């Protein structure tokens, strides 16, 4: 059977299909479905908006912000209260969405400082607080009994009947999905996946983690507010009991079963969790048990839910494996080394102690553009600590660090990264759910501001930014020699390839200083060779490279200058040959006996050559 070409699958307008489906659903009332089915469809649509918002914060960004149903309540009450006061639908809708955004922002603020557990608990508490908050202002909200008297929705003065309301709901749902799908497939969605994998990685790429988190909470809150506004008009009455523990659990279950990191999965999950209970008689009693089982299974076997399974199945059986056309073009073209504008790194007198443990005692390090500066030393000598200080993850107790003459010591890691310091990690941090090209592209996110609104609307500026991101990523991948892997999932690659990928990512965006933390660790001979040749060529292109490495051979072959750390002090600095024969270095690695042996040999040589 002829398979769909990879090019069409990834580049073609396949989004037309869900859009068409949505439009068909929208006109169903005019094709004669009954009011009962219309109502169910509206419920599914509203719930899918809620789940979509949850997918943004929980599935994409990895934040346990579970307060969706509380924000839903905020949207519903905001719209309801102002509708009772006589305002028109478009106005109440906007008010509800703004209120939801504000609440989403406020409740996300704790999430910036807190770990995931605490964020989960705080947002969960919010959900449980809804009844009490409602009871605080019973005159306005109707209290525990509910808010009655929400009039029929009026659009510019004209009341909307049942069918018109239905079309409005489906229309808003479609619009929400379009905007959020564009957001998720843009470089912003990519950035969220990086954040999900590791905030440390995000900072090292220059992302402002608090800013990114806040944006995510707001974006996750918007659909909830919109859904709430529409929900308020559904029955002319708001019951506070609709937003509680059960709804929160159902939302989480829907997100997981549909696929928390998918867009259309939200619809699948919402459909299952709305229609399923309705179809089974006597379900009410067992609904909680059902949701609970879904949560347990989903948490255990979190494999992307139904949407993830469908995607994988479709790709396996119906899409071929050919390289995309721009990858082929890049492979066919000449490998041109970009000019890298490395800057000088100068660390002076750096001191760092952890409690009583003085990890760095007044260390100096200079790395110049167009050179490879190696940092070696036995375990525990402070090499990684020095890298962490330089990249901003630790604040030095004393000393200065300058990149191109500009002081960076004491700056937050993402600011240090923004001044051009990029790094790799001892264990490669490669986010799940991204292709190789996307991993490299993620390094450009902070260097190149791009508007979220432009991404949501797929404006030319956003599309151009995405094209340029990909073009540079492909060029860099070609330089390193792994361009043909550009569209493969990155997290499943073998270790050697992942390390090369990390190095490639560190190069994106013309870095001033590149810090490599044990890049050869765990690699076999041939991979080490490849890595060494790549690093040498980058050095020749002008990069400032600092490499921490245990692999002595590799260091000797590529380093221009070797710095030796021992128990927090620099005991030798010089060319590889000088350092190799330095008695202090030999003693620190091999012990006193070896040092004496070396000194004897040196003396004998000197004596013999006289």
């Amino acid at each position: 059977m002829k398979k769909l070409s990879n090019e069409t699958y990834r580049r073609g307008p396949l989004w037309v299909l869900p859009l068409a489906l949505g439009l068909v659903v929208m006109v169903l009332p005019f094709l004669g479905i009954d009011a009962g089915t219309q109502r169910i469809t509206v419920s599914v649509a509203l719930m899918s908006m809620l789940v979509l918002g949850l997918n943004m914060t929980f599935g994409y960004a990895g934040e346990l912000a579970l307060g969706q149903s509380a924000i839903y309540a905020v949207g519903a009450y905001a719209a309801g209260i102002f509708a009772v006061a006589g305002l028109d639908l478009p106005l109440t809708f906007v008010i509800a969405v703004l209120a939801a955004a504000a609440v989403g922002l406020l409740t996300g603020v704790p999430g910036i400082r807190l770990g995931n557990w605490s964020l989960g608990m705080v947002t969960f508490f919010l959900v449980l607080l809804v009844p009490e908050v409602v009871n605080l202002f019973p005159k306005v909200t109707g209290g525990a009994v509910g808010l009655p008297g929400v009039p029929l929705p009026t659009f510019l003065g004209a009341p909307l009947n049942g069918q018109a309301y239905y079309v409005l709901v489906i229309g808003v749902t479609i619009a929400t999905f379009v905007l959020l799908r564009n957001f998720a497939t843009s470089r912003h969605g990519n950035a969220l996946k990086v954040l999900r994998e590791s905030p440390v990685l995000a900072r090292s790429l220059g992302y402002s983690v608090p800013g990114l988190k806040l944006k995510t909470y707001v974006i996750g809150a918007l659909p909830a507010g919109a859904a709430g506004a529409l929900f308020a008009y559904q029955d002319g009455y708001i019951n506070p009991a609709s937003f509680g523990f059960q709804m929160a659990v159902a939302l989480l279950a829907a997100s997981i079963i549909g696929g928390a990191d998918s867009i259309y999965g939200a619809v699948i999950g919402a459909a299952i969790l709305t229609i399923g209970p309705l179809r089974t008689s006597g379900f009410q009693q067992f609904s909680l048990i059902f949701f609970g089982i879904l949560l347990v299974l989903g948490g255990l076997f979190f494999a992307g839910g139904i949407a993830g399974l469908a995607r994988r199945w479709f790709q396996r059986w119906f899409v071929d494996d050919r390289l995309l056309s721009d990858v082929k073009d890049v492979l066919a073209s000449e490998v041109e080394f970009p000019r890298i504008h490395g800057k000088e790194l100068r660390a002076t007198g750096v001191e760092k102690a952890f409690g009583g443990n003085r990890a760095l005692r007044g260390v100096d390090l200079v790395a110049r553009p167009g050179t490879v500066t190696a940092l070696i030393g036995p375990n525990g000598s402070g090499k990684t600590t020095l890298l962490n200080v330089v990249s901003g993850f630790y604040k030095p107790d004393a000393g200065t660090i300058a990149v191109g003459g500009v002081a960076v010591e004491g700056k937050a890691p993402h600011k240090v990264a923004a001044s051009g310091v990029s790094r790799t990690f001892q264990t490669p941090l490669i986010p799940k759910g991204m292709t190789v090209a996307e991993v490299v592209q993620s390094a450009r996110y902070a260097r190149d501001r791009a508007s979220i609104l432009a991404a949501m609307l797929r404006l030319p500026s956003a599309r151009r930014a995405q094209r340029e991101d990909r073009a540079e990523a492909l060029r860099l991948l070609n330089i390193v020699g792994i361009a043909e892997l550009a569209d493969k999932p990155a997290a499943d690659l073998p270790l050697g390839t992942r390390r090369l990928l990390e190095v490639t990512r560190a190069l994106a965006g013309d870095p001033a200083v590149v810090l490599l933390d044990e890049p050869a660790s765990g690699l076999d001979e041939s991979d080490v060779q490849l890595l060494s040749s790549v690093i040498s060529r980058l050095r020749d292109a002008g990069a400032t490279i600092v490499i921490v490495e245990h692999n002595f051979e590799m260091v000797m072959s590529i380093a221009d200058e070797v710095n030796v750390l021992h128990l927090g002090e620099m005991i030798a600095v010089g060319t590889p040959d000088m350092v190799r024969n330095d008695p202090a270095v030999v003693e620190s690695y091999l012990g006193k006996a070896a040092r004496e042996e070396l000194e004897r040999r040196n003396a004998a040589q000197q004596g013999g050559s006289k």
Partner: protein
Amino acid sequence: MMTTVLAGLSLGAVYTLVAIGYNIVFISSRVFNFAQAQFLMAGAFIGFLGSAKLGLPLWAAVLIAAFVGAVIGALEEVLAIRRLAGRGAHNELVTTLGVGTIIAGAALALFGADPQKVTYFDSAAFDFLGGRTNLVDLLIILVAVLLAGIVGLITRKTMIGLASLATSEDRDAGMLRGINVKHLAFWAFVIAGALVAATGPLVASKTLASYHLGDLLAVKAFVAVAVGGFGSYRGAVIGGFVVGLLEMFGARYLGTEWQSISVFVLLLVALIVLPKGLFGRSQERLV
């Protein structure tokens, strides 16, 4: 005023009981068991069965509750937690939330939605230290403090306790030193489940047995640990009392609508001002 104090201490003691369960599991396996409060709820229903339906004496109900709690704890660890060892808080929150939901759902299916009375204790009020209280409230306070003291002592002074502390700081190091980390986690869930469930018949005499007893209880007991510090039993007592007192004084002087809201504010303040709690212990390695 003393009445409010005693009421606050008693309510706080309930949070302390769940917090003790949180700590036992957290210390031994670094997992936060969202379902812990539901064990109390399960024990509460066993108390209801024992007192209203089966005519069992209190000690029998307590033992059965402990047994049921132990079994559920064991099942939870084996089915929902074990496979996730170290994969990250993300999935553990989801699975423990799932287990808690299942327990609540089972209670709903078995006993219906109406709260049930547990009649082991005479609820007559009497004067004590200048305030009105009753026997159940005082007993709960006593049990909570005693339990925290005993478990705290065991953790600090016995080998098994020290092994748990060590494992919670560094799981791999614990394994290298010969600690059977899996066993430790398993027994922690079992013991926490048994202890917390066993207090159910007592607590339910105060709070009534209801399928959604566990929801707010889970979150407020979390506030108790947030205030007192994760992993500290002293902290569980102090934190629980702080939450209970705040809640009761808030209800008395601001109105019952402000009850849970004041606890929420306390949670935010505690998390931001005291990120490790009053007596907490935890280290993070950065890169």
